[in-house]
């Protein structure tokens, strides 16, 4: 009797709107992967060996996976989060030894015909442990020690992933900054961090001396308007000096630490170099495909750039170019709209949680998806360097689809249990 009740409550409490968005995105992914298969021969028969056939299997198994997570006890994730984190870190080490090298990255562990990508698992492993740490210790994130502990939780997987090296997956871990911010990390730390990123980019774009003069002029103006406030003047002085120092170090890092192909990528994206047939080829072709879709797109299976293989890696990282070409701006608007709806929904679901664990985890989920969407779409339209990360739920690939499914459904499970305490 009680069991019956709890089952009813379970289905009643799960946020079906999110699940519908999830299914919609998966379906959009399937349709566009189907369209992305280069037309080699006319074959009308549905083929499970092809990418779209496999993706259908991935989606089905993903749904099974997701619903089985809903059947688990919500406490499981909180309790086992350190172990899950630990296991994913070990897997990240294992992949460095037994991993298969694909495209210069040692990111996959082959298990039979299936390929496991530990960096995908590390995302929710880290999210879970971060949530557990904040919910258990209720740390004050405006003090040094908790920030360092949180930073360690995030930076360890980043370093391990960087050894593969997989810059794209590594960068996604920066998204954990936003849940921390929500939980009390001082805003100025974020501003300093992103300010440094901005300066790094400007440093390549403008002459160093122009930048230094700008900093000096801006700083001078601030000091002038805060004459009476000595403490602020000193602060501004310190910021100015460290900013200028940072400029020199950044230049040094860029020229001596980064690998040439990384440098080229960054330069290409900033428009410092033009090379439509070299490293910029993918982006250029992707932009052409998306741009040619115009307002309403060429129509399903009518995209010439897609059909005739002009965009490389089209069913995986560049799947958005298919959407852009065949469905046009309207299609892009719908997809981005769905993502926004999903993200805002998750944030609002997270805010209604009683447990801190669920809230922090929810923010982690939203921010990870946000980073993926932003970086991936930004890359296909040429406003972000080519960083190979998939578009959540849409890009071809079992590993990525399942890890996003698990990521999302753990949160849905936590949310369905929001009345209880974890």
């Amino acid at each position, binding site marked *: 009797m009680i069991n019956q009740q709890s089952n009813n409550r379970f289905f009643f409490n799960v946020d079906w709107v999110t699940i519908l968005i999830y299914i919609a995105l998966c379906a959009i992914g399937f349709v566009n992967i189907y369209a992305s298969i*280069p*037309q080699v021969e006319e074959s009308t028969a549905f083929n499970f060996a092809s990418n779209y056939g496999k993706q259908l299997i991935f989606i089905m198994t993903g749904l099974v996976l997701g619903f089985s997570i809903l059947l688990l006890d919500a406490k499981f994730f909180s309790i086992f989060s350190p172990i899950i984190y630990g296991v994913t870190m070990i897997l990240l080490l294992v992949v460095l030894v037994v991993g298969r090298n694909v495209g210069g990255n040692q990111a996959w562990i082959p298990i039979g015909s299936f390929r496991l990508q530990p960096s995908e698992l590390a995302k929710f492993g880290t999210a879970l442990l971060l949530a557990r740490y904040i919910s258990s210790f209720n740390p004050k994130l405006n003090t040094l020690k908790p920030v360092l502990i949180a930073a360690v939780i995030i930076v360890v997987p980043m370093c391990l992933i960087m050894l593969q090296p997989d810059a794209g997956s590594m960068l996604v871990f920066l998204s954990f900054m*936003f849940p921390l*911010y*929500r*939980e*009390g990390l001082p*805003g100025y730390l974020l501003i300093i961090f992103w300010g440094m990123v901005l300066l790094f980019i400007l440093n390549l774009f403008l002459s160093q001396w122009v930048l230094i003069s700008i900093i000096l002029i801006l700083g001078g103006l601030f000091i002038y308007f805060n004459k009476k406030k000595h403490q602020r003047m000193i602060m501004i002085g310190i910021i100015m000096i460290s900013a200028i120092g940072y400029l020199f170090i950044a230049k040094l890092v860029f020229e001596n630490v980064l690998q040439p192909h990384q440098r080229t990528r960054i330069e290409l994206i900033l428009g410092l170099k033009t090379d439509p047939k070299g490293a910029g080829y993918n982006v250029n*072709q992707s*932009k*052409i*495909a*998306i*741009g*040619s*879709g*115009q*307002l309403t797109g060429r129509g399903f299976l009518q995209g*010439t*750039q897609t*059909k*005739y*293989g*002009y965009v490389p890696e089209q069913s995986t990282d560049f799947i958005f170019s298919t959407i*852009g*070409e065949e469905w*046009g*701006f309207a299609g*892009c*608007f719908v997809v*981005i709209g769905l*993502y*926004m709806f999903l*993200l*805002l929904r998750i*944030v609002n679901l997270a*805010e209604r949680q009683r447990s801190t664990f669920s809230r922090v985890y929810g*923010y982690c989920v*939203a*921010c990870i998806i*946000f980073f993926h969407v*932003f970086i991936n*779409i*930004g890359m296909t*339209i040429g*406003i972000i360097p080519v960083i190979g990360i998939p578009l959540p739920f849409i890009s071809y690939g079992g590993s990525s689809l399942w890890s996003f499914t698990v990521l999302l459904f753990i949160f849905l499970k936590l949310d369905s249990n929001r009345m209880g305490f974890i």
Partner: protein
Amino acid sequence: MDNLFNRKYVIQVLFIVVALILLGTLFYIQVASEKYFIAAESNVLKKIYTFPARGVIYDRNEKPLAQNEAVYDLMVIPNQVKEFDTAALCRIIDIDMKRFARNFNKASAQSRYQPSIFERQLSVQVYATLSEQLSRFPGFFVQSRTIRHYPDSVAAHFLGYIKEVSPLDIQNSEGYYRSGDYIGKSGVEKSYETLLRGERGIVNMMYDVRNVPKGSYAEGRFDTAAVSGDRLISSLDLKLQKLGEDLMRNKVGSIVAIEPASGEILAFVSSPTYDPNLMVGRSQGNNYMELLKNPNRVFNIRPIQGYYSPGSSFKPLDALLGLQEGVIDPSMTFNCPGYFKVGGHTVKCEHVDGNIALRMGLARSCNTYACYVFQKLLTQRKYPNQRVAYDEWQKKVRKFGLGEKLGIDLPSERNGRLYDAAYYSGKYSKYWNYGTVISLAIGQGEMDATPLQMANIMAIIANRGYYIKPHLVKAIGKNRVIKKEYVKKNYVDVEARHFEPVIDGMQDAVNAPWGTAIQSRIDGIVMCGKTGTVQNPRGKNHSVFIGFAPRDNPKIAIAVIVENAGYGSTYAAPIASYIAEQYLKGEVSKYKLAQVAWMKSQVILPEPPKPKVKPKPKGTDSIEKVTTPVLPDQNHTKSKPIQITQ
């Protein structure tokens, strides 16, 4: 903690801002900018051209002079080539392994996925053998296209030739021509290129990223079919042209025959000539180099590029201008003691005829008579001085088509040479008069004319006062269009009545016992003409005849020049008479056939040029200066008299 709760808005605003950035960028590249759409089309679309048949060129009786013949190119798609018996293929198309490797590498370098020409222009026999065994050679196939064929091998200079376009041609055409296209390089093939080439067909094909064709674009809605080139009906008479070329065989010179009433050129012979079929096909390049070796410059188009002193053929103009100006009348006589003297210049005459009037003066080609008329023209009272008189005179001469291009529909026509008064004033300051330029009176000195210009003078006389620009194409396309400029009458401002006395003289030259070309009389046809012997400082004199026939309602005006052949009456005049007879009667009289055969068999070639002669620029456009004019040097008043023979 209120503070922290508000942070959820910060994060949501961040999401929305980023989404708007993405959408804004998307809006720009998808909706606001056409650039990417165009780039996508150019990625996928390629225009495949289909080639039209080149326009056929006919003679005036619509017998083909230039037509098209199918040839077969062996094509290869390198990535489709599998292991095969290379030796067998080489044997069939008759190439060695070295050439095979070279061809294959060249094709591979062009594209691995697209067809390139492997071996050009296989003969029909090779094609037949090859097509039976083609399945043994995967990746190879045969593509047919058409090349020029000249069934009678005549009129090479008139037809010109076509050749694959050079990079410069492509550049000059502003993208019309593409590598591998053919273009007319000389002759009618060049001057009527835009009509002959037709319109290429375009098939818009879609290609995938590896350049594999994927079918036509938009169901071929934007495709166009090839349109064959316009046919040209030339003014040439095939039989006449052939006879002319045969008569000029092993001689150097020109024959130009014009239908006076229409300006249509009936025969256009430049000798030495070549078989136009040599300039077609695989050995075009080799043949061209071989022909270039001929010391007599095969590619000179002598009728429009050869410079000759008009000599005696100029004398009718003296008389015509004299009559028109009223300085002479047909009965006025001048005394010919065998020479004409002015200042220190002496112009010799071959005879001593005493008092001589217009008719006899022309029939006997009297230099003295011509000089007197010239003197009278340049010493007219109405002009302030002789320099002005000269300038008026040369303007009138230009009306006869001398000194300027006539505007024939062939490229590379030359002006000829005739100077204005300013030239002589520049040379002699004020100190010159008719005596200084007296040799112009007899068509010598600083005056050159092309054979076409000489023939045109005859057309003017035949027409009694006008000419229509001589041209080689009388009708273009199905509608038989003719260019406007080739129907317009150009008047020379000499009244028709003045022509009759002049024509009398020219009639006597051929038909009277005292005429200079009496041997070339045609039975039943009154031909009017003049012989000339043009001095050639580099060898034997050139033999010249100009004339028209019949006297009334003339059908043919003609100029014949045989270089280094001596007297005009020996070679040029008989040749002209055979041509005129052939055209007017349809055949040459039976009793003259032996003469015709003898004429064809004559070999009159100049001595090989001395090695110290500086090399002339190569190419078909290079011009040979045939005759250097002899000008009396004003510093040597006792200079050697000009030798004019007739």
